């Protein structure tokens, strides 16, 4: 009985260990892959930009322009996003350059990455122009 439960425990530990290894390997493989980081930056840029506008507009709709002075937590979160968008834009742009240099992905995906970088630069320029990003 004791032997049997010991074997079961060892098997469970082995499965846990290999599962954990699989996840860690997957994460390691992704975060050390420049092409994956480049694409993830593009995804982050899209979600972040849309999220910023939705959050900012919803806070202004609920609390009015006064929330820009009183700065409730949702507004603080919204105002923190533009700095993150600068990082995403830079990494998307660098990723686009690397994609052309090292021929990552299909041609269409490379053009799309370049297009995203250009949109990001335009969006960040407007955020800077509107005072959301300090010089």
């Amino acid at each position, binding site marked *: 009985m004791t032997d049997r439960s010991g074997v079961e425990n060892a098997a469970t530990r082995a499965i846990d260990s290999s599962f954990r290894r699989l996840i860690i390997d997957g994460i390691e493989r992704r975060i050390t892959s420049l092409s994956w980081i480049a694409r993830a930056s593009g995804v982050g*840029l899209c979600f972040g930009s*849309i999220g910023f*506008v939705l959050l900012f507009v919803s806070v202004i709709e609920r609390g009015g322009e006064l929330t820009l002075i009183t700065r409730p937590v949702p507004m603080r979160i919204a105002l923190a996003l533009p700095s993150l968008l600068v990082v995403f834009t830079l990494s998307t742009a660098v990723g686009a350059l690397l994609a052309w240099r090292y021929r990552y992905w299909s041609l269409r995906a490379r053009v799309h990455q370049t297009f995203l970088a250009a949109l990001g630069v335009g969006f960040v320029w407007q955020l800077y122009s509107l005072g959301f990003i300090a010089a």
Partner: protein
Amino acid sequence: MDIAWPAAASRRSPARTATKTSDSTPQPSSTPQPGSRERADAVAGEYGVSFLPQSGPLQIVDRLERVSVEPAGNGRISTGSLDGDTRQWVETEPHVFRDVDGHDAIAFEVGDDGVTAMHMSSEPAGVYQPVPIHERQLVSGVVVGVSLAGFALSLVGWGVTGARRRWGGPVDGDESGTGRSE
């Protein structure tokens, strides 16, 4: 510099302007003054009021409160803002215009390089200054609108590609970036 604003009018409140204009302010004539069309073209543009913040996130309030000035034909100008307040103005003196349907007045300071300031009698606390083209509402609106549309379409495209890959449909090219790499 040609400062076209009548000194007395700039210190009047809108209410006093209403009574005074009937006495002293030149009345708009039905025929446009000579050169009024050129002057209406010259003052066209976008103006931002000076008392609003020019730095920090509050700048967006300034961007939303802008007044656009356009020639309206026959020497008249029209002003508009994002809140839908559209008014027509007729010239009473060179670079001085009076509201067609009211008693408000606007005057433009004009220098060698064009308009340097716009004064409105109903806003005695602030001066409107011309806004460069790259900071105008239209430019901001187009850039932000196109960017957001592109981001949204990208997310939809990725979603569709991911769904096709998951449920076995045809996928053109590798959109995920997780396949072939360096």
